[in-house]
């Protein structure tokens, strides 16, 4: 069998990994610059599409056409996400079932955006191996429903990948740990990423990784921590400077990135400072770890409910868990570690890099599928109950949650009217009693039933959840033994024809070639620096001598002229020159800002010493 890579398609970052034949160990494939993480960001610029770090640098510059955290939109309808759309600077519109993202004059779907990220990883792997890579295992949150899994599979197809398996992230992580580091026993994997949360409880024995129960929340992660901090900063800026920045897309992106960076620093430091120059003022703020813990406490708390429910489903107590494993970048937050430790009463494992462990596990699963590993086997479960809507809108459960997959259930259907030739079914996923409270998966139409008196036809429908956690439905008329035709209308998915069109069109969204990309980047860098310098001159120009101001203005002019050309080197040189010309001004302004911020404190100290 040909090579299969493992891909972690994350909310914030994505990675690709493989198992090295020589060592038998999984390895992450870095990009040319040695970076393992590819930011899951896609920027649609007039000159082409940017992915990863290059796209991330567009977030502030082009907030309306730079798409991030698209995983939160995968397999979802407009109603599902409309509450959180205010946090996104790009326009999300209702589509036919699924949502669409407006970027400039075109619309893209979440699977298409994810496909661009996948394609970039595919190319990275191809460069590494020097040969085409066509097959991949892609991970998803364990608590992803059928539509979200299908959307991920569609994204792979659009990217030109044969997705041989969709694997759950926490279970993938357990495989990576399982290679060497796990004793046999019951383990809990707590996986808090950028946008999703999963808890999975597994029994590891004789090389078999049997998932006993899983639970989670596919709309909870580090993104939500950042949002809580941003909301707090907005209030603080309003109070301190009388300006509300909530409707300024560029400022919001700057705040979001600054909040994220501060959160990350506070995982190791007790306190940190933010200094952010805006047009009319410079915002300075000291933040402590305690401040952030107060802001995110409720969010962290809300991961514990799913943990308890997963435990209850296994019939085990917290004390029965032998090991706890932490996965996902957000588990670096000390408060998260404390709460997990309190809940399970033991120190969690985190020896493997929580950003990489899922991709490493995906590579292990890929190697199992390729036949390269034969002593390990993963037995996963379906996270949500599958049922059909019956009379009165009540759900009849066919496959309960936490059933080991693959699994199947059969159900008999018949007609209710004489001569009826079509039978409808509504398939839902979820734990609620009423179909309207569950997740609608699809409506099925059984066609070509022979006209007979009501109740006579006997149609046996088989619902099969495969090893990807994705539903397949087949039907048979028992009287005649012939297979019945089924038409599927997925509630939140792409139709077959649409996917084919996207596969064909995907080259239209091809990543800009290297030269074009570098030029776009150089121009953007020039724009960012120019904007900052203009702002600095307005706010602090008076702090330096007139001739220094003149020198800066001249450098600014040269950069403007350079930017108008296609000469990347000239733009670079002019940008560097302008940066150098303003170094002194920046220092002087920073001193002034710090003095301003400390002014009141100093005054107080002086009072005391008197």
């Amino acid at each position, binding site marked *: *069998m040909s090579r299969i890579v493992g891909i972690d398609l994350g909310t914030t970052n994505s990675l690709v990994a493989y198992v090295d034949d020589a060592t038998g160990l999984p390895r992450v494939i870095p990009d040319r610059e040695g970076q393992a993480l590819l930011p899951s960001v896609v920027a649609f610029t007039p000159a082409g599409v940017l992915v990863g770090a290059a796209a991330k640098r567009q977030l502030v510059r082009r907030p309306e056409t730079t798409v991030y955290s698209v995983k939160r939109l995968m397999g979802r309808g407009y109603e599902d996400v409309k509450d959180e759309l205010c946090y996104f600077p790009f326009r999300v519109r209702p589509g036919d079932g699924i949502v669409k993202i407006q970027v400039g004059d075109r619309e893209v779907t979440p699977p298409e955006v994810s496909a661009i990220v996948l394609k970039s990883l595919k190319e990275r792997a191809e460069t590494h191996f020097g040969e085409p890579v066509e097959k991949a295992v892609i991970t998803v949150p364990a608590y992803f429903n059928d539509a979200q899994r299908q959307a991920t599979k569609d994204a792979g197809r659009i990217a030109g990948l044969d997705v*041989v398996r969709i694997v759950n992230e926490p279970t993938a992580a357990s495989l990576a740990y399982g290679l060497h580091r796990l004793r046999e026993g019951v383990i809990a994997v707590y996986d808090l990423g950028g946008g999703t949360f999963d808890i999975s409880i597994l029994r590891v*024995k*004789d090389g*078999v990784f*049997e998932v006993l129960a899983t*639970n989670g929340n596919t709309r909870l992660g580090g993104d939500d921590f950042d949002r809580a901090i941003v909301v707090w900063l907005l209030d603080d800026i309003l109070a301190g400077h009388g300006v509300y920045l909530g409707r300024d897309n560029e400022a919001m992106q700057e705040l979001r990135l600054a909040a994220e960076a501060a959160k990350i620093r506070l995982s190791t430091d007790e306190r940190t400072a933010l200094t952010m120059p805006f047009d009319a003022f410079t915002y300075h703020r000291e933040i402590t770890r305690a401040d952030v813990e107060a802001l995110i406490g409720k969010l962290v708390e809300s991961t514990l*409910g799913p943990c*308890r*429910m997963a435990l*209850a489903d296994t019939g085990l107590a917290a004390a029965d868990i032998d090991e706890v494993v932490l996965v996902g970048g957000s588990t670096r937050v000390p408060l998260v570690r404390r709460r997990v430790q309190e809940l399970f009463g033991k120190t969690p494992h985190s020896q493997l890099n929580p950003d990489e462990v899922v991709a490493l596990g995906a590579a292990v699963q890929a190697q*199992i*599928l*390729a*036949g390269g590993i*034969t002593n390990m*086997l*993963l*037995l996963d479960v379906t996270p949500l*109950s599958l049922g059909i809507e019956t009379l009165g809108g009540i759900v009849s*459960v*066919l*496959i*309960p*949650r936490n*059933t*080991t*997959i*693959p*699994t*199947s*259930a*059969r*159900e*008999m259907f018949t007609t209710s009217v004489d001569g009826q030739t079509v039978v409808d079914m509504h398939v839902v996923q979820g*734990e*609620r*009693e009423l179909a309207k409270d569950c997740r609608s998966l699809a409506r099925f139409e059984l066609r070509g039933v022979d006209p007979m008196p009501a109740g006579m036809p006997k149609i046996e429908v088989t619902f*099969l959840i*495969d*090893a990807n956690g994705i539903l397949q439905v087949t039907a048979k008329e028992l009287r005649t033994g012939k297979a019945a035709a089924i038409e599927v209308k997925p509630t939140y998915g792409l139709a077959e024809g649409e996917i084919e069109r996207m596969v064909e069109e995907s080259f239209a969204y091809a990543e800009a070639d290297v030269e074009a990309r570098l030029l776009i980047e150089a121009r953007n860098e020039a724009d960012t620096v120019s904007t900052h310098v203009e702002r600095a001159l307005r706010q602090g120009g008076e702090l330096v001598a007139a001739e220094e101001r003149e020198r800066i203005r001249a450098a600014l002019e040269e950069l403007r002229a350079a930017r108008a050309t296609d000469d990347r080197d000239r733009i670079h040189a002019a940008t560097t020159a302008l940066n150098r010309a303003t170094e002194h001004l920046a220092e002087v302004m920073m001193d002034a800002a710090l003095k301003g911020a400390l002014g009141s404190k100093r005054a107080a100290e002086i009072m005391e010493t008197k």
Partner: protein
Amino acid sequence: MDYFEVFGLPRRLRLDAAELQRKFYELSRRTHPDFHQAEPAEAQARVLETSARLNAAYRALRDPIARIEYLVRLEEGRDTKEGAAEKPQAPPELLAEMFEIQEALEEAKAGGLDAAGRGALAAQRDRLAARVLGIESDLAGRLSEAWDRAVAEERRRLIGQFREALAARAYLRTVLDDLGTALGESQDGHVANRRH
């Protein structure tokens, strides 16, 4: 092939759980789709079906009560819907008590639950929970043993007893759920904890 046959077991109720798990892992290694990726589509479809049946068989047999529910369906030739339980039915000797509880529940729903009422409901709940445990240990213990010893005629009688006990258990569990909700004790206020 029925679920007992999947594991090469006779139709007995007393099983060694550790041995069943060992067999499940061993059979999974043979039938899981992961190990048949290189085979033609038709063979893969067969593997998928075999694997799905193995998983269903393990689920049905690993739990002593689910095992009895499956056995009853099997003996009566009703082998369609997986997990279909016995229709809930109030145990006749508890009818009066059930009537009282229903009344108290109605009151609670109307918002009239004082501390004393609460205490009474909680006591009822504990009594019923103990009763469910009693039924379960009777099913998994005495009655299961009786089944394994029994022959044709007696087995038919035992199936009747199984059904009665399962129906009573199903009924009591529904009432317990209602009591839990009325007492505000459903976990984390999450509806997701519906049992299967």
